[in-house]
């Protein structure tokens, strides 16, 4: 091909790949909310009795497997939250929200795996922040693809 010896043309080919990829990579609001729900369930598992916590954790693990299966079935590919360096601030925000949820529960509950009414608003807060983080993640991921597609290079 003509661009085998032309580095600029090779970079343009990569940019073209990123453009085509950008057109395909979209996640729905329910898909973002599913990520938020799993993190919220993870947090609430600390505020329920151990048998219920085990069920909750199994639900979370099952949810993660279901999400990756569903993404692969729908898109023919899978992207995890950590894989894009450019989108990592959103990933860290989701982790921070989850850790803050655990910390708030530890402060509010009389003990580990003991119910507190504050568990619901805390889990709800985690759900909202993680869902928003997931939406932000997609925007950052797309911005990186667009930047690369315009020839500025990927991060």
């Amino acid at each position: 091909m003509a661009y085998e010896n032309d580095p600029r043309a090779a970079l343009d080919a990569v940019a073209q790949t990123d453009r085509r990829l950008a057109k395909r990579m979209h996640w729905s609001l329910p898909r973002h909310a599913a990520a938020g729900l799993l993190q919220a369930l993870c947090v609430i598992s600390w505020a329920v009795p151990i048998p219920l916590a085990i069920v909750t954790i199994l639900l979370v693990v099952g949810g993660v497997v279901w999400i990756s299966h569903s993404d692969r079935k729908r898109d023919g590919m899978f992207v995890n939250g950590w894989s894009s360096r450019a989108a990592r601030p959103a990933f860290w925000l989701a982790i921070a929200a989850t850790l803050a949820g655990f910390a708030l529960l530890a402060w509010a509950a009389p003990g580990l795996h003991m119910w507190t009414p504050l568990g619901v608003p805390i889990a709800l807060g985690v759900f909202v922040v993680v869902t928003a983080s997931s939406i932000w993640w997609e925007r950052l991921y797309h911005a990186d693809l667009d930047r690369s597609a315009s020839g500025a290079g990927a991060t």
Partner: protein
Amino acid sequence: MTADIDPVLHAPARLQIAAMLARVDDAEFAIIKDVVEVSDSVLSKHLSALSEAAYITVRKAKRDGRQRTWVSLTPKGRKAFAAHMKALHELVAAAQHAVAAE
């Protein structure tokens, strides 16, 4: 071209395959074919070359009753792709420098 250019990724289609796989965890054969815009046979040939270099892993999995091929970039492949891209950027920068100096 300099020694930093990876001969395995030198072929444009292979570079595009690596560029796509660098953005995802794994991708199905049919999707890679659509994005890179190559035929089944050409894609198979390039995937074999990338696999021989241990830049990708290929696995088969059943979905909807059909066998599908899933491809992912290995850590070695990611490193090679990053180094190759760096070399390409450096070559472009050097060329621009040379033009500006004339």
